[in-house]
C-alpha cells in the first residue's frame, strides 16, 4: 500500500487489525470474522515499536509469545535470528538502535506464524542492505502461503516482491494493480502505467 502522508494507509491497517472501529462498514478477515475473532491468525506491526524499552529482546518476545499461548523459547530465538538479531543479546530494547528496534518489532509481529501480516512501514530506519534482505524474507514468507499487507513509502523495495500495489490518496483507494514489474514512484504516476 503506497501513497502520500495522510493518505490513510496506517489508519486502514489499524482498522483491518481491529484497533480502530470504522465509521461505516465492517471488516471480515480470512473469511472468518472480525480481527478479534481471528486474533491468533493475524500479526500487526505498527508505526511505533510496540516493545518494552526496559526489557531485552528475548524477554519482550517471550512475553508476547505467551499472549498467543506459545511457551517455547525456541520460537522467539528463531524469530530474532530471522530478522538478523542475536537472541542472546541482553541489552535492553531502549538501548537498541532504531534499525534493531524495527527488526525486533517485525519479529514480534510474526512470532506466532500468522496467516495474515499487517506491517506498517517495516523498512523505516533500516539500512538499504538489510531492507532488501527483509523484503526478500517477506517474499519467501508469501511463497509459503501467507498474506502480507505492507504500508511503505519505499515502493522500490517491493517492486521485485509484491503481487499487488494499492495506491491510496486522501482516505480512499485510488488504484490497484496486480503486477510485478511496473515502475511506480510513490505519490505520482510519473513513468508508470495506471
Amino acid at each position, binding site marked *: 500500500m503506497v501513497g502520500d502522508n495522510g493518505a*490513510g494507509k496506517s489508519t486502514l491497517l489499524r482498522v483491518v487489525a481491529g484497533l480502530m472501529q470504522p465509521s461505516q462498514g465492517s471488516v471480515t478477515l480470512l473469511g472468518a470474522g472480525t480481527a478479534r475473532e481471528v486474533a491468533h491468525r493475524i500479526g500487526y506491526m505498527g508505526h511505533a515499536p510496540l516493545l518494552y524499552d526496559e526489557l531485552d529482546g528475548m524477554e519482550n518476545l517471550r512475553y508476547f509469545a505467551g499472549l498467543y499461548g506459545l511457551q517455547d523459547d525456541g520460537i522467539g530465538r528463531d524469530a530474532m535470528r530471522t530478522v538478523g538479531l542475536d537472541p542472546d543479546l541482553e541489552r535492553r530494547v531502549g538501548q537498541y538502535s532504531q534499525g534493531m528496534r524495527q527488526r525486533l518489532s517485525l519479529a514480534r509481529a510474526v512470532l506466532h506464524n500468522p496467516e495474515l501480516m499487517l506491517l506498517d512501514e517495516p523498512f523505516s530506519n533500516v539500512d538499504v542492505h538489510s531492507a532488501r534482505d527483509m523484503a526478500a524474507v517477506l517474499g519467501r514468507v508469501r511463497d509459503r502461503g501467507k498474506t502480507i499487507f505492507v504500508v511503505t513509502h519505499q515502493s522500490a523495495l517491493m517492486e521485485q516482491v509484491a503481487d499487488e500495489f494499492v495506491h491510496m490518496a486522501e482516505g480512499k483507494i485510488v488504484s490497484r494493480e496486480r503486477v510485478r514489474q511496473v515502475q511506480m514512484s510513490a505519490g505520482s504516476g510519473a513513468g508508470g502505467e495506471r
Partner: protein
Amino acid sequence: MKPLSIAFIVFTLALLGFSTYQALFVAPTEQTMGDVQRIFYYHVPSAWVAGVCFFVNFLASVAYILKRNSDADALAAASAEVGVVFCTIVLITGPIWARPVWGIWWTWDARLTTTLVLWLIYVSYLILRHFATGSQTKLLAAVLAIFGFVDVPIVYMSIRWFRTQHPSPVMGGGENSGLDPAMLHAFLWNLLAFTCVGIILVVARYRLQQMENEVEAEHARLALAGGAR
C-alpha cells in the same frame, strides 16, 4: 418550534406561576419554623427532579453502551446537566433553610451528604465529558455514569450507618411525615410544576446535543467524501 411544544411551555409557566402562588401565599405558615419553611416547596421537588434525571442518565448510558446510539448519548448528556442544576438547587436551598431554623448551615446527615456526593459524582461526569478527547468521549462518559449510579445506594447506606454510630442533627427530619393537607396540596402542585420544568429543560438540552452530534457526524462524512476528487 412545534405548536405542541409551545403549548407545553406556556402550560408549564402557568403551572409554575400557580404553584408558586400556592407555596408562597396559600399554604399555611408552619408553626415552629415560620415562613422560611416555604423553601421546602422548592427544596424537595428539586431533589425529586434531580433524582429522576440521574436515573434517566443511567438508563441512557446503559442504552448507549449496548446500542452505541448517539441519541442515547445525547439524552445522557442532557439529563446529567439538568440533574446537576437541580441538585445544586437542593444543596443551596438546604443550608438557607437550615440556618434560621436549626442554627447550622450544614450537617452530615444521610440525606444531605448523599446529595452532596451525588452532586460530586455527576459533576465529575460532566468534567470527564468536557475533557475527553477523540471519538470515544460518549463511551467513556457512559461507563462513568454506570459507576456513579451503582455507587449511590452504597453511599446512602454507608452514611446511614455512620450516622447511627455517630448521631448528629438531622435537618427537616420528617418533613413528609404528618404533612398538613393544605401543605400537601401546595407541595404536589410544585412537584408537578418542577417536573414539567425539568422535562422542558432536558428535552431542550437533548435537542441541542442531538444537533451537535449531527454536526459532528456531518463533518466526519464530509471528511470521508472529500477524498474523492
